């Protein structure tokens, strides 16, 4: 069974139609990349999949592990193992990273009918994962993303992913604003999570990230639709020729 089956998905925000029929299937163990110019709807797709109600789905369907994803509240999607790493992680003053993540882990455990982790067990787990991502353990006591640099915020997203161990990971422009060292750390973190039963959807504007997180499939999104799909070599082609190449092809096809 596919992890995620997106069929002719349409969505709008504030009366503006952004997604105009996206179809995409992601199976376990697969890494898909979506590339596309600014404003093509890549991030909207990520937000819709995560359940942000600022976006209104106007058509199509999404099945996640065979169930209707669009019917689920965002917290249910997350508890069922769908994770989106935010392009702009939110700062929450007054809530420590550790407290926040423990609440998240235990919400998912409760959802699955498992006993909750106590503070001691959780703290040990969190410290181990933080270390693997080169994050200072002191970060765990700080407020969620507050005063974090761009790179720290992105690493914190991957750290959360590592702790929550989701089935389906969506990375929304995780590479934006990262220097080459931070990019490598983030990519290592993601690669460490690759497994035969986990799926990835990597959204990026630049081919650069895909040198580090090598995808199985590359899709190009233009004006709310996937206009081309191929293997990892498609990313290189795009890099060489630019988006105008697919945009032009799209234009002439109309």
């Amino acid at each position: 069974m596919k992890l995620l089956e997106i069929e002719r998905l349409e969505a709008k925000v504030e009366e503006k139609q952004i997604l105009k029929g996206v179809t995409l299937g992601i199976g376990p163990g697969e890494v898909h990349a979506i590339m596309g110019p600014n404003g093509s709807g890549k991030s909207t797709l990520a937000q819709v999949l995560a359940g942000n109600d600022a976006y209104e789905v106007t058509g199509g369907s999404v099945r996640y592990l065979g169930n209707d994803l669009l019917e689920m509240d965002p917290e249910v999607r997350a508890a069922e193992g769908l994770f989106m790493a935010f392009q702009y992680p939110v700062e929450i003053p007054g809530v420590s990273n550790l407290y926040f993540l423990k609440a998240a882990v235990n919400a998912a455990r409760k959802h699955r009918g498992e006993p909750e982790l106590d503070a001691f067990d959780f703290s040990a787990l969190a410290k181990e994962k933080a270390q693997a991502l080169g994050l200072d353990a002191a970060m765990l006591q700080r407020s969620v993303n507050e005063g974090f640099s761009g790179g720290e915020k992105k690493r914190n997203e991957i750290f959360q992913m590592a702790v929550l161990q989701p089935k389906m990971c969506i990375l929304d422009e995780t590479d934006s604003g990262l220097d080459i060292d931070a990019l490598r750390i983030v990519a290592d973190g993601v690669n460490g999570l690759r497994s035969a039963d986990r799926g990835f959807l990597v959204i990026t504007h630049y081919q650069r990230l895909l040198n580090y997180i090598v995808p199985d499939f590359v899709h190009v999104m233009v004006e709310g639709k996937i206009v081309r799909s191929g293997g990892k070599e498609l990313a290189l082609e795009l890099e060489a020729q630019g988006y105008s190449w697919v945009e032009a092809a799209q234009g002439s096809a109309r």
Partner: protein
Amino acid sequence: MASIATERSSDFYASLQPAEIGRLRPMSESAWRSFLEAGIPAPKNEEYKYLSFREMVSKHFGAPTAFDCTESDLQNFGLADTDGPRLVFVNGRWNERLSHLDAEPGVIVQPFSLAPGFDFEDIGSLAKVGKNPFVDLNTAHLDDGAFVSVNGTAAQPIHLIFVCVGDGHSHPRVWIELAPGARAAVIESHAGAGASFVNSVSEIHLNQDSALEHIRIQTRSETVFDFGWTEVWQESGSDLRSTNTAFGGRLARTDLNVFLNGENCHCLMNGAYFAAGEQVIDNHTRLDHAKPNCNSFELYKGILAGRSTGVFNGKIFVHQDAQKTDAKQTNQALLLSKQATVNTKPQLEILADDVKCTHGATVGQLREDAMFYLRARGIPEKQAKAILVQAFVGEVFENVRCESVRESLQNMLMNKFERNASSIEEM
């Protein structure tokens, strides 16, 4: 004037009259006259602008008849956890059975009637008759009260508990005095149920270089009319850490007045309240910087749900002599419902020219981006709201030094949230 005269002869006023005016204390008689003269504040009174007394004055409170409750009643009122001495007053009267008077050397925690070194002449020296009708009314009923005197360091927090049971009016009175260099923490718990009118007055005298943590916790049921007046006098080098919290009351009003009467004083005014349903919670603070080189930090946070109303009025007066004053006031409100309102008014009057004074007020709602972020990590909506509410108040509670009290305050906050979660979810 005719309407006021009619009101003064109403049941309401008659029901508040002390049984034997002036028998208890000579001051009481003039206080009662002063109260009658001023009366309950009229609608146009600037100091009580957002409070409507209509419902209160339509009631007949009468003198309380019960002066006892059980230990389990006390537990059910959800008081803060403390070890150490405690004084319990039920409907304004000292309850010996529920009190623990044993205190460390140098520490006296006693009712006025038993306290060695207590002088009735002190009472009213800080909260003076003739300036406020509620202080007047309290003084008119002056009989017993809670006396705290600390010389040296009180390691254990001192707990003063004022519960109301049944109906009726009561007028708790507190006198706290710290000797030069003394250190202590005093918690005032104002709890209980019934259709009562409780009107307390606390006077606090901090001598040179003394340090007091004073925590007022009001968790009365939402049928009680609760008034609390606190007057603090700080001598040079003294340190006040005040936390004023209100969760209960039909109508709850606190006045906290601090006078910095010496150099190098520190004053922290820390406050949090959570109003829901039809509650009205009103906090007035006044801080007088009368001498140079003092600093003050004020932080009040309000949470408003349902159709509740919150009021914050913070006055800071920097007197002409008070050069090098450093004063900061912050007031924030979080609205959890579209029907809730908050009225906030900072008032700074600065007569000295070399000072640093800032103030800021904000009113906001739960942030949608933060809500989505929490939910996208699997945290259910109600829990996400609770987390953001806790985070909002967090800063205030972090300023509380007594750890067990800090935890109790967290629990009170979350209990209140739980009780009102359904109305919060409607938003």
